[in-house]
């Protein structure tokens, strides 16, 4: 199964890259854009037929390595097939 992971900085933590992109968007005229946050996108093929079990394993992977809970949140979506 395909697990897709998004890792972002926690709310309230200054996202310096997000700020830089926000400024660039404003100078391009997209003045209504706010709160740009940049994260990481990670995809994994995970063995298993049970989506719930793959989801649990991916959550575990995120807690152990892919995210640092001190500063980041993560979100996992699991899709059947590759």
């Amino acid at each position, binding site marked *: 199964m395909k697990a897709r992971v998004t890792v972002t900085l926690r709310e309230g933590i*200054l996202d*310096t*890259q997000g700020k830089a992109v926000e400024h660039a968007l404003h100078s391009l005229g997209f003045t209504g854009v706010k709160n740009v946050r940049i994260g990481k996108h990670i995809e994994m093929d995970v063995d298993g037929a049970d989506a719930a079990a793959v989801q649990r394993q991916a959550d575990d992977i995120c807690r152990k390595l892919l995210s640092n809970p001190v500063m980041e949140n993560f979100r996992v979506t699991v899709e059947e097939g590759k």
Partner: protein
Amino acid sequence: MAAMKNPKIGVVLFPGANCERDTIHAASLLPGASVRHIWHKDTSVGNLDVVFLPGGFSYGDYLRCGAIARFSPVMRSVVEFAEKGGIVIGICNGFQVLTECHLLPGALLMNESRKFICKNIHVRVERNDIPATRALKKGDVLKLPIAHGEGRFYAPPETLQALEANGQVVVRYCDQSGNITREANPNGALNNIAGICNERGNVFGLMPHPERAAEPILGNTDGWGILQSLLM
């Protein structure tokens, strides 16, 4: 802790580290010290008094700084060594590794300016009762080089409060007179934090590089006091 004579010092060598030679060299200047490197695949740090985690870009800083180094085989042994009271000092990337493996609280985020900063800064010594600062005086101002892209110390409010309440902040960015100011903070670190220790004081992490300022030929010896403290 009694004065340490002839300290046995190890410097962990992660792939991608680039300050391990400097650290070995600077530590070797301590009279009586024996210094060796510890390979990242070793499963034991062996019989040592002090372990350094050097600066650099361990495992390419992939994913997050220090995130992958944390799981290298030697780190389990470093954690055990620290838990038994062994002295562990993480410099720059080594500090990042110490937060990732939870020997120290908090995290180090991308500099506020988004730039890699390589320059001399000043730090004020906030406590001189831990093994790495005994040769210094409280309030001493040290000029030390920094070289990092991710040095903005962050901790959630309750953790930060506990760090301050326990006196775990060891060095703070300051101006050359020792004033803690916004302008003297190079990376946006909370409370101008440049280095912290664990509650016990045996684990110390800092972003500046004392090993790059430890002998007269380098034009700056302000980092020497941190090394020299290990003999006291």
